């Protein structure tokens, strides 16, 4: 037993690509451990469909599903992908083919190729049956369901402890299956955790899937590198000094060796290939504002600014992006931030896609600066552009108080 496990481990380590890929369309035997994982995740998937943060934009969902299918090739019909509006870089793949892609990932991928790489990585966990591999000790469906129940119960208790009140805690404990929050996700993720070796294998297989689908394999290392830059941009020393993780739930850090392995393999694959930058931007463009607002609400403005810089690098969507850049500086309010906010709002105001709120914020910031004429112009602009805005009376009030020399 021991020898064969060691032998298998040695084989996996020596030739990661040679591991047995599951057949497309395969369903597990009803009494097997794998069927247990499927049962647990079928339930989680049913809950995902009712959640408040499920993104239901048909065009965006079609885009993400299309990229997933390119990466998954023959396995496409086995997979179901749900887009969730959550401002964290995360994608997940359950053993039953239920996959989540979070808005934080879509916002951070530079192009379709980078998204395809991350999805290819997730697809590889599925095609290599990594969950089953990670839980060899679980022999039957019943064992798996029991183990998962314990994990969810502990996650439930943990959620309850972080609830607002004792009675809320009780309500959460009672509502089994409704413990949907970050702690729950973290616990589920730890139950479905992959080993360092499996992550390395998924990286390399994901990159090969990327190349086979006709994308540029260089996108793989670039997507991980972008994430590292964001960690370094954090407002918080503890975050800056921590190792980058691929998602908030990932237990394995994104070390330099993983990026290096992707660069090495890229040399063996066909260079160049599709990046799909315009297609990606077109798909996420309608959501940029809402997702950046969600990102700002995490209140790590340095990280959001890194994301905005990357989105603005090619000179597109500069009205929206400069507005949110201004918002990040305004909300952070560090030394010199208000001046940077003003400059960003001014840059936004010169663009055709500037949100109308730019002029209200510009008015407020100039008023703080004592530039009363400038404030008046900005407020007048806001009222002219948005006479029906719900807060027009508030801006009118600010304007009147300027006139009264207050």
């Amino acid at each position, binding site marked *: 037993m021991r020898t064969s496990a060691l032998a298998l481990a040695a084989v996996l380590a020596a030739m990661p690509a040679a591991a047995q890929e599951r057949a497309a369309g395969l369903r597990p035997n009803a009494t097997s451990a794998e069927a247990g994982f499927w049962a647990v995740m079928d339930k989680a998937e049913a*809950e995902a469909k009712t*959640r*408040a943060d499920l993104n239901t934009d048909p065009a965006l969902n079609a885009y993400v599903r299309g990229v997933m299918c390119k990466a998954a090739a023959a396995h496409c019909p086995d997979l179901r992908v749900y887009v969730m509006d959550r401002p964290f870089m995360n994608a997940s793949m359950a053993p039953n083919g239920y996959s989540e892609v979070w808005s934080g990932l879509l916002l951070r991928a530079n192009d379709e190729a980078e998204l395809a790489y991350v999805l290819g990585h997730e697809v590889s966990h599925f095609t290599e049956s990594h969950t089953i591999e990670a839980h060899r000790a679980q022999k039957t469906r019943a064992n798996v369901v029991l183990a998962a129940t314990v994990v969810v119960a502990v996650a439930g208790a*943990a959620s309850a*402890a972080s609830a607002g009140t004792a*009675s*809320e805690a009780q309500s959460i404990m009672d509502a089994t299956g409704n413990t949907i929050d970050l*702690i729950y996700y973290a616990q589920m993720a730890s139950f479905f955790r992959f080993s360092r070796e499996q992550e390395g294998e998924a990286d390399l297989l994901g990159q090969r899937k990327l190349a086979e689908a006709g994308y540029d394999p260089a996108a793989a290392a670039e997507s991980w590198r972008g994430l590292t830059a964001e960690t370094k941009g954090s407002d918080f020393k503890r975050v800056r000094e921590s190792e980058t993780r691929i998602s908030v739930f990932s237990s394995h850090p994104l070390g330099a060796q993983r990026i290096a392995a992707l660069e090495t393999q890229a040399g063996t694959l066909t260079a160049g290939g599709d990046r799909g930058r315009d297609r990606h931007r077109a798909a996420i463009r309608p959501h940029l504002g809402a997702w950046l607002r969600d990102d700002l609400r995490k*209140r790590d403005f340095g990280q959001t600014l890194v994301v905005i810089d990357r989105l603005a690098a090619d000179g597109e969507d500069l009205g929206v992006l400069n507005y949110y850049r201004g918002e990040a500086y305004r909300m952070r309010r560090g030394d010199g931030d208000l001046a940077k906010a003003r400059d960003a709002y001014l840059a936004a105001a010169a663009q055709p896609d500037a949100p109308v709120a730019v002029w209200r914020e510009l008015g407020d910031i100039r008023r703080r600066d004592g530039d009363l004429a400038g404030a008046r112009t900005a407020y007048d602009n806001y009222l002219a552009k948005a006479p029906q805005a719900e807060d027009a*009376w508030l801006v009118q009030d600010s304007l009147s108080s300027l006139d009264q020399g207050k």
Partner: protein
Amino acid sequence: MRTIFRALGPLAACLALAACATVTSAPAGAMKVGDAYEVALGREWSDISNIMNGRTKKVRLLSIDGPLLNRLYLSDGLEPGEYLIKPAAKETPTPVIRKDMSASERLEFVADSVVALEYQRVQLVRPRPAKLGQGNGVRFDLTAQTKSGLDVKGTGVISEQGGKTYVLLYLAPAEHYFDANLAEVEAILGSARLG
């Protein structure tokens, strides 16, 4: 695993000390929110401030049927640097009061504080002029969803007076519970006496 232990810490402490279940009655009649701030309750509420996660001294939390069904946040005057919702960690900050907030930043403070309570799709709507005591404020309504998709409604007022910010915020499920106690909340709001 670290997550579990850190999160279970407070619960374990509560169980050991039996100190976390101190819900008290807030009977009908005058209730002091702060030294110079009083409202009138039209009926008995439960004061669940003491069992609130991350409670701050200046914020009282009342409920009738439990915090998932109705909750009323009443803050005494918040000063710059103070918050409605206390952050769990330095790296996960919650909105704070600033000394030079604009009117729209005060509304942002309310909406983002509700986001910090982990409500989803939070939208602050219909800001309108209002009084809190003798001072001017902004009345607002709010729509949101719980994580599992239940529609929630809110209403309240935010008012800056003498450099301090007062917030009154009522949240309840849109179905039945919000409307059931709205008249009581309106009356409490109208009863505020400051200074």
